[in-house]
């Protein structure tokens, strides 16, 4: 099992921004679009066959031209004199239909990312993912942060629209970041690296939806733009958000009036709204039924398209 770095790089105080697939693919879409927009060059990868089965084969006139695996790649760009490395993991090992991976393979993959990071001289790592919250889909998603130190936490809280977990949740500053987006942070911290996770809010009832949530990806990208000191173009996101919003609005309009009324109170409250746990569970449970009645072209997961602006 290993990783490959295509070139030797002598970087100055680089940061690593990484993400894997997950709920709403919020982190994945954000980081992959980020590396694309800054024209980052591919500098390495993790050999995929120890972690994943191939998902596509191209055979031409009998000859096997290629086998395609989910990508786990490193990219680099020098941004306003800040060396920035990006890691994009299209899938988490051990995912098997779940939203997040786990187990021995996830541990090994995180270890390889950290080995590569240390080889590049990285001392600070950001990951990104989803924060499932009692929020409204029509409200701009906030970015929720956890960090390895109070100092770094205060640093990220200075970014507009970024809040600590404790400020946004009934549970205070407690919770779990599942899968590799969390595992990597824990392992990195053990190795003495500074780490933070920036998570875009997604309404609880959409956490199992089979499509991405670009609204939250945009919020995350805006936060990373601040961290990296760059400007980004969000035109691509506006189109994607519009498309997904149409699907979500159709689902929203199927809510019974009473549920809709109580859900809409979330629009005005920053703290969790008065919707009960049972009502939130009701929405999640009925999501499959709502999605069944959608025309086929809507709501399909088109993550591959999301990663590259057209």
């Amino acid at each position: 099992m290993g990783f490959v770095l295509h070139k030797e790089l002598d970087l100055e105080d680089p940061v690593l921004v990484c993400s894997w697939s997950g709920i709403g693919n919020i982190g994945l879409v954000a980081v992959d679009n980020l590396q694309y927009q800054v024209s980052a060059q591919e500098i390495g990868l993790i050999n995929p066959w120890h972690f994943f089965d191939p998902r596509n084969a191209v055979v031409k006139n009998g000859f096997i031209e290629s086998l395609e695996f989910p990508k786990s790649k490193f990219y680099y760009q020098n941004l306003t004199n800040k060396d920035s490395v990006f890691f994009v993991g299209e899938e988490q090992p051990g995912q098997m239909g779940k939203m997040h991976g786990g187990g021995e393979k996830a541990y090994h993959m995180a270890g390889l990312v950290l080995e590569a990071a240390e080889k590049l001289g990285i001392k600070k790592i950001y990951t990104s993912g989803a924060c499932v919250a009692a929020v409204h889909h029509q409200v701009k998603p906030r970015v929720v942060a956890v960090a390895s130190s109070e100092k770094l936490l205060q640093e990220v809280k200075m970014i507009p629209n970024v809040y600590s977990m404790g400020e946004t949740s009934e549970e205070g500053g407690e919770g779990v970041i599942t899968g590799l987006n969390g595992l990597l942070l824990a392992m990195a911290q053990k190795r003495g690296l500074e780490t933070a996770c920036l998570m875009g809010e997604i309404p609880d009832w959409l956490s199992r939806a089979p499509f991405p949530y670009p609204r939250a990806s945009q919020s995350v990208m805006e936060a990373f733009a601040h961290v990296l000191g760059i400007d980004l173009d969000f035109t691509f996101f506006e189109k994607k958000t519009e498309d997904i919003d149409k699907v979500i609005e159709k689902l929203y309009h199927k809510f019974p009036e009473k549920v809709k009324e109580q859900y809409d109170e979330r629009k005005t409250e920053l703290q969790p709204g008065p919707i009960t746990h049972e009502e939130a569970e009701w929405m999640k449970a009925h999501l499959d039924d709502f999605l069944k009645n959608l025309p086929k072209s809507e709501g399909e997961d088109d993550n591959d398209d999301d990663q590259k602006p057209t």
Partner: protein
Amino acid sequence: MTTIKNPLKVYQKPALFHPVLLVGWQTQDVGNVGTGIMNYLQEACQAKEVAEVDPLGFFAFEGAIFKNNLIQIPESKFYECAENNLLLLGSDEPMYEKYNFINTTLNYCRDEYMVSRLFTFNGHPSPVTHHGSRSIFLVFNQLKLGEEFPENEQVEHVSWDGPPAMSTYLLWVAQKKGISGITLWVEVPFYLSSIEDPAAIKSIFSFLNAHLDLRIDLSRLNQKIERQNRLLQELCDTNPEVAEKMQKLDQEEELEENEQVFLSKTVYEYLQSRKQ
């Protein structure tokens, strides 16, 4: 999933040098092609079991599968066929750790036996009838093999863009180890997918006999073909609906889905009822 460190159990030292490896998959075995070829060869060569891959870590063990009232255990076994210098692998397709499985088996074949060439076999359900010959579609992992096994009336070089079969994955890894590999996808009338198609098996053997100089006696297979064709003719004679569907296929007309299901079910039930 538990991954065991050394999944290979070797029962005896290799007695062959530079054999050709033949791999027959036993999972979703269309027309029983993979299993049929392995069984036929094992009997014809009086093959000896020499090693197996421990299934733990590669298959789910959440209960027991049974087929025809017999309990099935996933297995992956190697046999030596000294007479024809063949190494045989009859295996269920692993569900987990596929790369690890392929890597382990190929390393064993290459390092212990100096295997430098392998063939795998798969049945391909097709809209053809049992009346005609069975074409073979080739997939290979080195360009030069396209010239060594050129297209002709019976053989076609296939193109594909989609999820890979286990055989394709095996060939891809084999190529990285310097082992040339060819998969033979043989046509199987779709209504024979769930039972043995001896004509498809014979088509593969004819190809291997020609290219590997195997000289495998095919008389038992010929008897099976004859018997199956006779039974299918009986079915057509007594069931006009079946005869009508077969005629459509012979004329290369498409059958509706319900017609395909009807034909598959009727043929399966009839042949099962007439099993020896």
